[in-house]
C-alpha cells in the first residue's frame, strides 16, 4: 500500500469528517475569493471614466453627480440645460444677464453638446456632434475606427465594445428605445450604423452616438413640457475644453449667473478618489482578514484531523514504516483535500460572484466594462494550499521529534 492509496482510503473511509473539512475549506475559499475579486473590481470602479475633457457643465446638482453622469454614463436621468447657453458658449458670444452684467466666453477652446436620448440594449444613446471625436488638439477623445460621423437623421455611431458585443458593422441597423426620466419606452427605432469608434478603454466604448438634432427629435416625440421650459431645445451636459486659466472665468459665468454648474474634471476625480480611498482601505483590511481567517480555518480543520491520527502514525512507525512514507501520506492527504476544496470553492466563487456583484450595484463598474476573471481568485487558492501544507507541519514536527514508543504510550 503506497502513501497515496493510504491517503485516498483515509479520505474515503472518514467520509463525514472529509466532507465537513472540504465544505468548510471550500466555503472559506469561496468567500475569500469573492471578496478579493470585489476588492480588485472596486479599484476599477472609476477606471472607465472618459478622458479628454477639462470641465463639464450640467444642471445644478452635486459635482460628483455631474462628473459621473457625463463621463461615466451612470446615475439617474439628469436635468436639462438650455441649448441657447451652449450656443453662446460655442460661438463666444457676449452673454447679457438680467442684472445688466455681460460676459464674453473667449476662454473656451472647444465645447461639445451632450444629450441622453435613448437606450439600446441597456446602453445609453447620446446626442452629440463631431466635436466629440478626436482632433489634433484633443488626442484623448475617441477616434473613428471606421465610417463617418452621424450627421443625418436615423444614423448612429457605435462605441467599440457595443459594436463588438453585438457583432455590428457599418450598414447594419440598430434598434433603440427613447428614454425620458425613469421611462425607457417600448417604441422601436431603427438606426443605420455609419461609423464605429475605436476603443478608448472608457465608458464611451459602451455607448452609441447620434446627432443632437436626432436626439432632440426623439425628445419631441414625448411630452417634455413638465420637465423643461425650453421645449426640446435642451442638452444635459456641455463637455468643455478650456484655454489656460479659463476655468475661473467659466465658473464665474456658469455657477453664479446660470441654471448650470461647472465642475473641473481633475478636481472632481481627486475628490472621488479621496472619498472612495477610505472605503477601499477598509475593504482591503476586511478582505485581508477574511483571507487570513480562511487560512486559519484550513489549518485548524487539518490540524484537528491529523492530530486525531497520532496513534495511527505511531503504529505505522512501530511496524517499521519510515517517517518519509508517513510524511508523504500526510502531505498527499492534505493536498488531495486542499485541491478538492479549491475546486469546489472556485466553482462556488464563480457561481456566487455575479449575485454579489449585482448586490453591490453601482458601487462596482458595469460587467460589460470591467470583467472579473475567476483566476483573479488564484492567490486565495495558493494561500489555501500553503495553509494546508503548513497544517501538516505540526504533525510532521511531532513525528520527527517523538519516538514511536512515546506516541504509543501517550507520553
Amino acid at each position, binding site marked *: *500500500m503506497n502513501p497515496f492509496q493510504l491517503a485516498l*482510503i*483515509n479520505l474515503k*473511509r*472518514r467520509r463525514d469528517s472529509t466532507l465537513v473539512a472540504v465544505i468548510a475549506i471550500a466555503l472559506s475559499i469561496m468567500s475569500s475569493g469573492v471578496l478579493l475579486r470585489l476588492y480588485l473590481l472596486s479599484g476599477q470602479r472609476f477606471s472607465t471614466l472618459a478622458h479628454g475633457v477639462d470641465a463639464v457643465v450640467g444642471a445644478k446638482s452635486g459635482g460628483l453627480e455631474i462628473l459621473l453622469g457625463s463621463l461615466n454614463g451612470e446615475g439617474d436621468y439628469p436635468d436639462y440645460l438650455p441649448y441657447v447657453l451652449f450656443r453662446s458658449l460655442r460661438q463666444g458670444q457676449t452673454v447679457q444677464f438680467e442684472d445688466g452684467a455681460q460676459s464674453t466666453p473667449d476662454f473656451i477652446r472647444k465645447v461639445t453638446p451632450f444629450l441622453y436620448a435613448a437606450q439600446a440594449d441597456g446602453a445609453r444613446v447620446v446626442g452629440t456632434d463631431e466635436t466629440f471625436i478626436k482632433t489634433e488638439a484633443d488626442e484623448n477623445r475617441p477616434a473613428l475606427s471606421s465610417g463617418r460621423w452621424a450627421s443625418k437623421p436615423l444614423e448612429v455611431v457605435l462605441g467599440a465594445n457595443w459594436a463588438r458585443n453585438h457583432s455590428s458593422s457599418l450598414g447594419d441597423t440598430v434598434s433603440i428605445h427613447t428614454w425620458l426620466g425613469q421611462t425607457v419606452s417600448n417604441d422601436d427605432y431603427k438606426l443605420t450604423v455609419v461609423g464605429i469608434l475605436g476603443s478608448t478603454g472608457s465608458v464611451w466604448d459602451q455607448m452609441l452616438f447620434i446627432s443632437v438634432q436626432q436626439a432632440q427629435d426623439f425628445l419631441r416625440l414625448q411630452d417634455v413640457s413638465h420637465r423643461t421650459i425650453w421645449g426640446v431645445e435642451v442638452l444635459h451636459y456641455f463637455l468643455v475644453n478650456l484655454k489656460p486659466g479659463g476655468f475661473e472665468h467659466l465658473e464665474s459665468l456658469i455657477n453664479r449667473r446660470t441654471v448650470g454648474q461647472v465642475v473641473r474634471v481633475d478636481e472632481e476625480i481627486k475628490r472621488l478618489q479621496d472619498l472612495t480611498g477610505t472605503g477601499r482601505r477598509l475593504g482591503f483590511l476586511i478582505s485581508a482578514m477574511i483571507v487570513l481567517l480562511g487560512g486559519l480555518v484550513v489549518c485548524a480543520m487539518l490540524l484537528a484531523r491529523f492530530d486525531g491520527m497520532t*496513534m*495511527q502514525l*505511531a*503504529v*505505522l*512507525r*512501530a*511496524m*517499521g*514504516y*519510515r*517517517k*518519509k512514507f508517513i510524511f508523504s501520506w500526510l502531505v498527499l492527504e492534505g493536498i488531495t483535500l486542499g485541491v478538492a476544496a479549491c475546486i469546489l470553492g472556485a466553482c462556488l466563487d464563480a457561481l456566487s460572484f455575479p449575485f454579489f456583484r449585482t448586490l453591490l450595484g453601482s458601487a462596482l463598474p458595469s460587467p460589460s466594462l470591467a470583467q472579473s476573471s475567476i483566476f483573479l481568485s488564484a492567490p486565495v487558492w495558493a494561500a489555501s494550499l500553503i495553509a494546508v501544507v503548513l497544517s501538516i507541519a505540526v504533525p510532521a514536527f511531532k513525528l520527527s521529534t517523538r*519516538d*514511536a*514508543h*512515546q506516541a*504509543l*504510550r501517550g*507520553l
Partner: protein
Amino acid sequence: MEIRLQKISVQLPGSRDPLFRIRELKIPSGSKTLIRGPSGRGKTTLLHLMAGLFLPPEGDIVVGEAELHRMSDESRSDYRRKNIGIIFQRLNLLDQLTALENVLLGLSDRGNLQSAQKSLEKLKVADKADLLTAKLSLGEQQRVAVARILAASPPVILADEPTSSLDHDNAELVRKNLFEAASGKTLVVVSHDERISKGFDRVLDFDEWTRQ
C-alpha cells in the same frame, strides 16, 4: 535471532529514579519467552526496547547481528519492518482499514494477498476480512492483530498481552496460532494471563529479573 540487552537503564520522562535496570538479558534465537509481572513496572517499555522503538540513554540492544543502539531511527524502522513483528497491548489496528488491509499493511509487499487471507482464515476471522476493524469486536480485533504477524512471519515476534481481551476458546486459538507462527522463530510475550503460560521455554519474572 537472538535478542541481547546489556547495561540498560530506563527512566520515565521527568523522573530521577530509573523505571528499571537491566544488567544483561539474552533471549536465545528460536526460544519462546514469557515475561510476567504486575502492571506499571515497564514490561511494555521493555518490549518496545527490544523492537528498537526507542533507545535508552545508555546500554546495548542487539537483535541478531544488528546493533540497534548504533542505528539511526530510519535504519531501525527498516530493520523492524523486515525482522520484527509486534502485537500491541491496545491492538492498534488502523480503524479506517479493513481487517484484510490491516494484515496487508504488515507485509513487505502487496503481492502477498494469499498469505494475508490464509492467516485470517487460521484465526477464524476470514469472514470479517472486508469489514472495517472499527466494526469488529475486541476479540476479533485481537485475532486480526495476531493474523497480521502470522502473515508477515518475521524472525522475531514480540507480543504485548495478546490474549487479554479474549474468552477462553479464543485465547487458546490465539496461543496456538502464535506458537505456530513462531515455530523456529524468537517469540517474546509479555502477559499476566495464566491461560497463555503453557508451552514457553522460559518464564521470567519481570521484577526479580530487573533487580539482578
